[in-house]
C-alpha cells in the first residue's frame, strides 16, 4: 500500500525510475553486449589470421 501512496504522490519519479530508467538500462546493456561481441570476434579473427600466417611462414 505504501508503494501506491508513493506512486500517486511522485508520479514523475515513478515513471522515470520504473519505465524510462529500466528501458535505458536495457538499451545500455544491449549496446555494451554488441560492442563486446565485436571486440571478441575481431580478436578471434586476428588470432586465426596470425595462426595461418605462421603456418605459411
Amino acid at each position: 500500500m505504501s508503494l501506491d501512496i508513493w506512486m500517486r504522490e511522485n508520479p514523475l519519479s515513478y515513471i522515470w525510475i520504473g519505465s524510462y530508467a529500466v528501458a535505458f538500462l536495457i538499451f545500455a546493456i544491449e549496446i555494451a553486449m554488441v560492442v563486446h561481441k565485436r571486440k571478441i570476434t575481431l580478436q578471434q579473427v586476428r588470432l586465426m589470421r596470425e595462426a595461418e600466417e605462421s603456418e605459411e611462414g
Partner: protein
Amino acid sequence: MAINWFKYSAPTTFYGLAGKLIPWFAVSAAVLCIVGLYIGFVVAPADAQQGEFYRIIFIHVPSSILSMFLYLIMAAYAAMGLIFNTRLSSMMASAIAPTGALFAFISLWTGALWGKPMWGAWWVWDARLTSELILLFLYLGFISLHASIDDPRRADRAAALLAIVGSVNVPIIYFSVKWWNTLHQGSTIKFTGTSMHIAMQQAMFTMLVACWLYAITVTLMRVRSIILERERHTKWITELAEVKS
C-alpha cells in the same frame, strides 16, 4: 542514375557500408531521443484524466510498434534468405531477433507499470498485452532454435521456416486472443479516444523515430560481428584494416 542495389546485398560491401552508416544512425537516435523526451516531459501538458502517468506512452507505444514491425521484418529477411539463398538476409534476420525481443520486453514492462496506476493491477489479461507476451515467446523460440543448431546454414534455414510459420500464425493468435478476451470480459477499462495534445503526438512520433534509428544501429552493429564471424575464412576479411592492426 542507376545505383546497383545488389552490390550492397553482398556481405563484402555491406560490411563497409554499415560501418560508415552506424555513427550517423547512432548520433541521430540519441539526438532525437533527447528532443522527444524534452517535448514529452517539458512541453506536453499533463493529461486531464491520467495526470502525469500517461507520459509512459512515449516509450511504451514506440517499443510496442517496433516489436511487432521488427518481427515482420525479421520474417521477411528470413524468407528472403530461405528462398533466394542470400547470405546477408539470413544474417540480418538473426541480428534483428534480439533487439525485437528486447523491445517486446520493454513494451510489456512499461505496460505493466502503466497499468498499475491506471487499472489498479500490474497485469491484466487484455488482448493486446497477451498477444505481446506471445510475441515475446515467438522471438525467444526463434533465438533459441537458432542458438541450438551448430551448423549456421541449417540454423538460418530452420529458424527462417519457424519465423514464417510464426508470422502466418500471428494474425490468428491475435484475433483468437481478442475474441477470448471479449468472451471473458476481463478488464472493462479501456483507453477511449481522449484527444491527444499536439505536443504529445510530436513527442511520441519523435521517440518512435529515435527507437527505429536505435534498432537500426544495434542491428547493423550486430550484423557486422556476424559477418566477421561467418566469413572469417575469406580473403577480404583478413585484408580489413581493423583485422590487420
